[in-house]
């Protein structure tokens, strides 16, 4: 078991005929991920690297190839439109890798997600989702992971890799690794993923990586305190970030005293979560309370 993606996942790649998208899609395919179609408006009827049929619309990819998951590499001005198209086509899981989508566009996407609760969006501005040994959708390097029982969720790509690699080096595999993205308005929260890991019988423990800004980590901590018996470790990046400055991720900004690292760490500790003091100790923090 795992969450979000597995060997039955049927992926359609939106915008994968571009340079970055094609490289990552080919990596995903080489990993064993079941890509069934590509969608690039205007290129319908052609083929992607002699591997996949290309369609003009997501609707066709769903009707003809039974796609149930979409990965989006569409450039920022058009990416939200691509998400909306996937929602409308009935795609159940949409993974948007694109960085730099305007907030206004994401507000419209958020409204569409409220109207279509069957669709789940991961991202945008995220590394994707991987279930080691089965399915890798996005830009995560597959070799750092191995199948196992620890769920990892993070806003940040390279910090996800750091945590996954620390676990793998110590002999602990992962059930699924989920990058929810660093934007202020995104599809899936820490809490959503923690809830899924909690309900997944194969996931025995979790690492949650957060950062300054917003209050998503506090919400997840409140849920964990109330409902989660599985061991959870966490790390919050940005303890030293100055207020009012945006640290790369549009979501990573401390404003008006809210979203500070210290407030988040306090909420996590209060929920019984093992908080790593440094990013080098994420796996260690979990292994203190897990086996």
């Amino acid at each position, binding site marked *: 078991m795992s969450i979000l993606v597995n060997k039955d996942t049927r992926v359609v790649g939106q915008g994968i005929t571009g340079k970055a998208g094609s*490289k990552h899609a080919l990596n995903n395919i080489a990993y064993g991920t079941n890509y069934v179609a590509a969608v690039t408006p205007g290129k319908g009827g052609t083929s992607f690297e002699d591997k996949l049929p290309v369609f003009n619309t997501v609707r066709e990819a769903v009707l003809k190839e039974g796609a149930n998951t979409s990965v989006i590499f569409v450039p920022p001005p058009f990416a939200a439109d691509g998400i909306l198209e996937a929602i409308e086509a009935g795609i159940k899981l949409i993974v948007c890798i694109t960085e730099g989508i*305007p907030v206004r566009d994401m507000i419209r996407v958020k409204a569409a997600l409220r109207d279509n609760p069957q669709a789940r969006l991961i991202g945008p501005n995220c590394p994707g989702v991987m279930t080691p040994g089965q399915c890798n959708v996005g830009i995560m390097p597959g070799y750092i992971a191995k199948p196992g029982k620890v769920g990892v969720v993070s806003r940040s*790509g*390279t910090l996800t890799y750091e945590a996954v690699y620390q676990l793998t080096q110590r002999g602990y595999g992962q059930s699924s690794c989920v990058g929810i993205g660093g934007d202020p308005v995104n599809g899936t929260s820490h809490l959503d993923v923690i809830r899924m890991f909690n309900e997944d019988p194969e996931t025995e423990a979790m690492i949650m990586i957060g950062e300054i800004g917003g209050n998503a980590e506090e919400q997840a901590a409140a849920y964990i305190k109330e409902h989660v018996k599985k061991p959870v470790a966490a790390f919050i*990046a940005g*303890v030293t970030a100055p207020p009012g400055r945006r640290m*790369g991720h549009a979501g990573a900004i401390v404003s008006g005293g809210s979203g500070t690292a210290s407030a988040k760490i306090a909420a996590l500790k209060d929920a019984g979560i093992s908080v790593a003091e440094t990013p080098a100790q994420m796996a260690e923090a979990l292994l203190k309370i897990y086996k």
Partner: protein
Amino acid sequence: MNIHEYQAKELFAQYGIPVLKGAAVQGVEQMNDALASLPDGVVVVKAQIHAGGRGKGTFKDGYQGGVKVCQSHSEALEVAKKMLGNTLVTKQTGPAGKLVGTVYFNEPVKIAKEYYLAVTLDRARGKPVIIASTEGGVEIEKVAAETPEKIVRINVDPDGGVQAYEKRVMAYALGFDGKELFKQFSKLIDGLVKLYWEKDCSLVEVNPLVVSADGQLIALDAKMGFDDNALFRHPEIEALRDLSEEDPKEIEAGKFGLNYIALDGNIACLVNGAGLAMATMDIIKHYGGNPANFLDVGGGATVEAVTNAFRIILSDPKVKGILVNIFGGIMSCKTIADGVVGAANNVHINIPLVVRLEGNSVKEGKETLANSGLAIVSADGMADAAEKIVSLVAKQG
């Protein structure tokens, strides 16, 4: 991206939000004409910088106050000359202060009462939110912490516009229950939300919003921030950018697709990924050092990008050591190592350089560094890297 008050007020006027008559000048020679456009008598002179707390600020030469009420045009002229080209320090600017490149003259108003009004993003809901309070002219964060009941928050659907009941809720909470005031408030709210939405703002703040002695609602101050990701569709907003308000190193970094933010410490860092870059700053601090910057070279760092990153880092005279922290995911560590060696050959580095490589092709990457003949200290893991650079910088004294 932020803009100045006078620029924000020009946008306010375009959206039917009432502002006082004003004129902005960038040079002394424009001052007489600007003042002549305002009625005789009292004039308010306001220094234009991207920071709050101007009224209580102090100029570097000891002159007090970045906002002054002057009784005559001749007094306003003298005051404006003192402000222009001077550096204003407020509690939001930091000790370095900000150079005043523009002075704004405003007609005066008799204030009956001050309020707070803003439109911004409610992250938790993924919707815009209007924030209104009877406590104007003070820090809204303080009001929120001490008297939260004095703040009204209304989520709005910007495509559908602000609903009548939403306006009523706010108007009654603010005490705008008279028919005339409600009419003015209703129009003002519509304008603010439309402006926020159409121009892809991250913040539109009116603090204070005032009711004048003769019963007019007026936006006395204006603060606007914009979503950088949306500037591509607003060249008219991009044109309002004041580069003198930004760190030159940050502007330079932006040209090469690098995300750089200057900080106060002396250990520079060069990292791939925003989260890892923040975490690298944190671990430097954890081991007793102080980061000089945040720098995310992104996922596709080329030799050129890495070289420019080194050049920008080294242009900061405070920097006494460099930590490179790379987790090569898809990208090969060999590529990064080539970039570091290439950069070190192009840019003379005479301070300690610690490099931590992990992930894809890490062995080849480490070999490249070891065979380069450069004085590079190799580290295993983030903790080792941070400890090494902190102790090397400390040894230098």
